[in-house]
């Protein structure tokens, strides 16, 4: 709870910091504020089950763990806004403030115990993202992305809200645990059609937010048009928070309706894996590849939802936590490198990475670690993320889905290897100069690579903590 309060206050503080008209203060300022929030969040670890606002919001280890991921992700993302600092972007303070506010939404999404709180959380997060997607006001692609995202997002939220209303109609409650009991009561059986349509609409609404197929179609376009800095935020924080919310919904409120949503989620999962991986393999732009790859990772996380079976502390939930963390840090590192390289070399296809191993060994190394992690190769956190999720699903008997996921991750190898080939096996252009990287970015990238390796070597540190 402290983290929500602090973030709101700091968001406003950041807006005032903007009056200083000194972008140099803003970046370290925002990072320090977020570090303080991270500390406050950590203080809530193992503090037990703390309900707020008439049980609408709850802070327990589940909330704290997922909040930890989104906060960490944002902290390590901030250094890559340096280009805005250098450009002297007049709106930098607003960007930071919007990021902090959107984090409030993200925390509400993983901490809700009441469907209205979920809705408010999603809206806070989304509205901030609509604005940030269009933050390059003079760039038509950024405008296009913002408009697309806004229209699609508004639809999805509408559908979600409709679903919540139907769920309320069928059960008479918004509270998660009461929903769970109400649905399990046989007397409510006559209301099932309404209930099922409601569940389906909620799945569509959240499926859109986490870009699960077939509601992923906006992702590549929006990710490509949005400034890379915010794309990284979208594909990590929004996804992590979305899955935190999704898991909670299915596990706490809807376990009794499992017979209905399980096939739906399984079908979505298989479709997401297929479209995400095949789509990514067909891309020529690194950024678009990362966009499709983020769709495919939603597919792997959906396997965790399938395997969770109404359990917020079991193997599958732990797997989702671990996977989200490993995925987020690897993605931030990848987007960070891509942003730095694209800013410098002005091209975003794979060839833009050519010879990076020579000109910028560190960037190339960090990119290598993140690609291997996203591909799920051992020695990286991504491997254990996949392993925990797939082992949990296989343990629950979903062999077919697991086999399909393994086949799809073989497809993944192909496109994750392409940046590596470009960086190490192809020569740089003759006039290629090293990509400029400042100290804090270097430190952040090194930290991300190290964290990915630590997660891949000693996964016991964070596995099974929920």
């Amino acid at each position, binding site marked *: 709870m402290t983290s929500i309060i602090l973030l709101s206050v700091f968001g406003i503080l950041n807006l005032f910091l903007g009056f200083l008209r000194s972008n140099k203060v803003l970046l370290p300022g925002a990072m320090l504020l977020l570090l303080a929030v991270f500390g406050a969040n950590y203080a809530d670890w193992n503090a037990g089950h703390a309900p707020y606002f008439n049980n609408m919001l709850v802070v327990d280890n589940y909330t704290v763990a997922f909040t930890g991921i989104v906060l960490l992700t944002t902290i390590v993302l901030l250094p890559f806004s340096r280009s805005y600092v250098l450009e002297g972007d007049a709106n930098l303070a607003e960007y930071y403030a919007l990021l902090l506010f959107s984090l409030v939404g993200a925390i509400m999404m993983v901490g809700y115990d009441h469907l209205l709180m979920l809705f408010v959380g999603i809206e806070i997060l989304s509205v901030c993202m609509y604005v940030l997607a269009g933050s390059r006001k003079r760039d038509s692609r950024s405008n296009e992305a913002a408009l697309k995202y806004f229209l699609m997002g508004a639809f999805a939220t509408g559908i979600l809200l409709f679903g919540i209303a139907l769920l309320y109609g069928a059960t008479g409650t918004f509270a998660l645990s009461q929903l769970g009991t109400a649905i399990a009561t046989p007397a409510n059986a006559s209301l099932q059609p309404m209930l099922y349509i409601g569940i389906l609409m909620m799945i569509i609404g959240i499926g859109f937010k986490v870009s699960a197929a077939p509601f992923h179609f906006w992702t590549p376009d929006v990710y490509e048009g949005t400034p890379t800095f915010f794309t990284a935020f979208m594909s990590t924080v929004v996804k992590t928070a979305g899955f935190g919310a999704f898991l909670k919904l299915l596990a706490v409120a809807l376990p009794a309706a499992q017979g209905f949503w399980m096939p739906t989620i399984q079908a979505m999962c298989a479709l997401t894996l297929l479209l995400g991986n095949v789509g990514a393999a067909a891309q020529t732009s690194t950024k678009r590849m990362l966009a499709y790859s983020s769709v495919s990772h939603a597919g792997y996380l959906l396997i965790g939802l399938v395997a969770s079976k109404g359990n917020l502390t079991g*193997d599958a939930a732990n797997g989702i936590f671990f996977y989200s963390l490993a995925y987020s840090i690897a993605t931030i590192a990848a987007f960070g490198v891509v942003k730095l390289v694209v800013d410098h070399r002005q091209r975003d296809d794979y060839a833009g990475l050519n010879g990076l191993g*020579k000109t910028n060994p560190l960037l190339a190394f960090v990119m290598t670690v993140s690609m291997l992690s996203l591909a799920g*190769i*051992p020695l990286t956190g991504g491997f254990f993320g996949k392993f925990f999720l797939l*082992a*949990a699903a*296989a*343990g629950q008997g979903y062999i077919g889905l697991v086999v399909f996921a393994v086949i799809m991750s073989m497809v993944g190898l192909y496109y994750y290897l392409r940046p590596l080939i470009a960086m190490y*096996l192809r020569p740089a252009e003759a006039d290629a100069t090293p990509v400029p990287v400042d100290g804090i970015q270097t430190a952040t990238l090194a930290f991300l690579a190290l964290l990915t390796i630590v997660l891949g070597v000693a996964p*016991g540190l964070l596995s099974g903590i929920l």
Partner: protein
Amino acid sequence: MLTAVLLFLPLAAALLLLLTKGATARALALGASLIEFALAAYAAFAFKTTGSGSFNLDYAWIPSAGINFHVGMDGLSLLLVLLTTFLVPLILLSAFKHKYDNPATFYALVLFMQTGLIGVFTSLDAFLFYFFWEVALIPIYFLAGAWGGERRVAVTLKFFLYTVVGSLLMLAGFVYLYLQTGPAAGSLAAHSSELSAFYSLKLSASEQSWLFWLIFAAFAVKMPIFPFHTWQPDTYTESPAPATMLLSGIMLKMGIYGTMRWLLPVVPLGVSQWQKPVIILSVIGIIYGAIIAIRQRDVKRLIAYSSLSHVGLMAAGVFSLTQIGLQGATIQMLAHGVNVVGMFFIADAIERRTGTRHIPDLGGLTRRTPILSVCFLVMLLSTVALPLTGGFVGEFLLLAGVYQYNAWVGAIAGLTIIFSAVYLLRMFQRVMLGPDSSFSETITDLTGGELLILVPLIALVFWLGLFPGSFLHISEPAVTGLLTQVGR
């Protein structure tokens, strides 16, 4: 504990190497690999006197999933660790002969790979085994890719995809086995991926039947067994010489070792079901590799196909499921490792002097290079399995094992010796003897530094050939144990 030191010393040295350059890097890399070899030799000594109990290390790695960091060495592991630690310093020395970009990174990757290889040979937990299996792959991919020949991009991509797909199938098999341990529907923490837990599983014959192929996929690609071999000749040819030596000398043994430790005893019923097809494939590989080798005009490619042919015999010997076949495979893993590294080193030495590996361009080299010729001939005759050399002992035992399985198959597999005599002696004749080429007068003989690499190899060739007992003795209890496990 010693095993852990053996595992992490090369890794630590690899990390340190990234901070050094030039002569310091060379000294550090070589020094670390020599210390590593000394430790392995000490382990062999300790094994003889006190047994392998002290090599065990069992540490809860991922408690929430019942996975342990469990390493240890029995006789079989020890021999392969000895082979690895013996070859790595020599491979590093051969790398010093080249002027690579970023040499420190190159050496660091070699040492990093050594950690992976030793991990594979000592892991006693399935996921740890898989972990090291992939750890060994990543450095060799970069070694072959970043320092490779012109066609490196396509070739290494094929290599990487082949091996990773194979090992993912193996992982799938391991996950299935792992979920069979412990209670049926418990949390992951209740399962175990220990080798011993896998050994005590009671699976039906039909389960074992498909599990066999899932697990064998990884080993078949790595060895490689016909028809999973198509990555191999290209990768061997395009890689820089030290990487080729690592691939053929040590990495290939991961497949044989994996079969012996992680396949035969784990799914014995599956093995007995598929024994015949696999032996037939192996024998096809023997003949196929040999016939193609005869036609090769590139020295490196010829050795690559020859290696394919010899691996086929090792696989056939392992799948004969006889004591003599497995012991033969063990000794042949050592002999082949030494032979093939020696052969590739000599091919590299010739290429460095003449700038070509194209056989028709070479000829009459022997007049100016008596020492090179002798070394070449020794390595070559050991590969042909001439008595007194290591190759003879290995191939003889292997053939005896295959013969016990089926006399006809044994006879066909025996052709490997005749075939390898044909293509290897023909190559020797055309490269070293034969009509003079433009290099005959200018080529220089081996330097002292190069002899430093070849002399230990040759010494081991004769040691293996004259006193194979000293090695067979070490692996015998382990091999007997594996076969008891298979026969249960």
